[in-house]
Structures are given as C-alpha cells and as structure tokens.
C-alpha cells in the first residue's frame, strides 16, 4: 500500500512509530501520525505550528484529552502512579485509526487527482473523521480544522 507514498510521507509513517513508542502506546494510531506530521522541520510542520498544532502542543493536548476523557468516568491517571513510558524498540503495528487514515490518504489524493501521496494528503485524511482522538485533541488544543486544512492544501 506504500508504493505511491512519497519518500517524505514514508518518513512521516516511520516517525509515527517513534511517536507511539515515546508515548508507550501498544500500536500506532492516528494521533501518532498527526504528531509525526508536526515533528521535524518541514514547511508543513511549521504551518501546523503556526496554526497552533505544533508537536509539543499536540502532546500537551493529548494529555489534556486523556485526563478529560477519564474524568467523565471518575478515573484519574495520577492515582495509578504509572512510570513514564519506557520507549520500546519492539516493532509496533498499525491500529485501526492509523490504517484508516493511511487508506483515506490514498482516497484524498485520488479525489484531488494527485498521483503521489504527500504528507499534506495524510493531514487532510486525518482531518476527515468527525469523532475519535484526533478531532478531540485538536479541539482541546484550540486548533480549527479549517486552519489545518489550509496548511495541508498549501503544502500540496
């Protein structure tokens, strides 16, 4: 499925694994792809940061989103005394949300008539779902979908 991915996009997918590992996640999910797009020194990462979705802002928003979501059921992360995630070297597989985002990346490019799948297509794909961790995290970060869509489109 990665044949049509541009090299830059493949690097983002590789980076997503690092993001998942750093957070102690058992699988690569859509939010790790979002973090990977925001990491590094690409023009797209810079415009994401300008829109309020820089890498560190997203990490913070993920924490806030988790705390808020757990609070709904009366659970507090701090009561578990968990150690900081120990970054594993094990190869992580893609979770459903990441698989769907990668599939959607192809569809986004096809709809636009673009041949190569660029990081901007991936960002547009990540903005499609109305529910799930990514839209929630962006809302907690105070980032509008529109601002990121503009950043993504400008990068293509």
């Amino acid at each position, binding site marked *: 499925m990665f044949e049509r991915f541009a090299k830059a996009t493949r690097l983002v997918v590789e980076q997503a694994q690092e993001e998942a590992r750093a957070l102690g996640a058992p699988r690569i999910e859509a939010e790790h792809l979002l973090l990977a797009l925001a990491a590094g020194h690409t023009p797209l990462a810079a415009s994401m940061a300008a829109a309020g979705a820089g890498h560190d802002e997203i990490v913070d928003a993920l924490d806030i989103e988790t705390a808020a979501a757990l609070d709904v*059921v009366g659970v507090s992360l701090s009561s578990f005394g968990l150690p900081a995630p120990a970054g594993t070297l094990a190869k992580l597989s893609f979770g459903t949300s990441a698989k769907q985002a990668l599939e959607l990346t192809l569809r986004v490019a096809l709809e636009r008539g673009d041949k190569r799948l660029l990081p901007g297509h991936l960002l547009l794909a990540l903005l499609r779902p109305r529910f799930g961790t990514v839209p929630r995290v962006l809302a907690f970060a105070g980032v509008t979908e529109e601002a990121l869509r503009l950043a993504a489109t400008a990068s293509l």
Partner: protein
Amino acid sequence: MDTAAKSPPSPADALAAVVALRRLADRVEDDAVRRAVADGWSWGEVAEALGVTKQAVHKKHAKRLKET
C-alpha cells in the same frame, strides 16, 4: 461532567472515556507485567492472573521486557 449532576455523560464523552480507559489499561498492564516478571512471576502465572493464554502474554510482553 459536574459532580452535582448524576446524569450520564453524553455518548461522545462516554465513548471517548472508553478509548482513554483502554489506553490506560494497556499502560497499567505493561507496568504490572513488568513488575510481576521482575518479582519472579512466570509467564504462566502472569497469564493466569490476567485470564489470558501464556502465548498471548508472552507475545505481547516478552520482547518489550527483554530490552529493559
């Protein structure tokens, strides 16, 4: 989200809570298994305690724990 009200959370909030609980459960499991193995528990004992097969627990944790 107010403690005064006993009304259930919205479906959106409840579903997000489920996702967050699963993520939390994974992290609690990782930590608990690591500590059990460090305390000398066998994979079989850990599997029994978790109510899963030995193969499942080994597949999920062995490689990760070998690194540390």
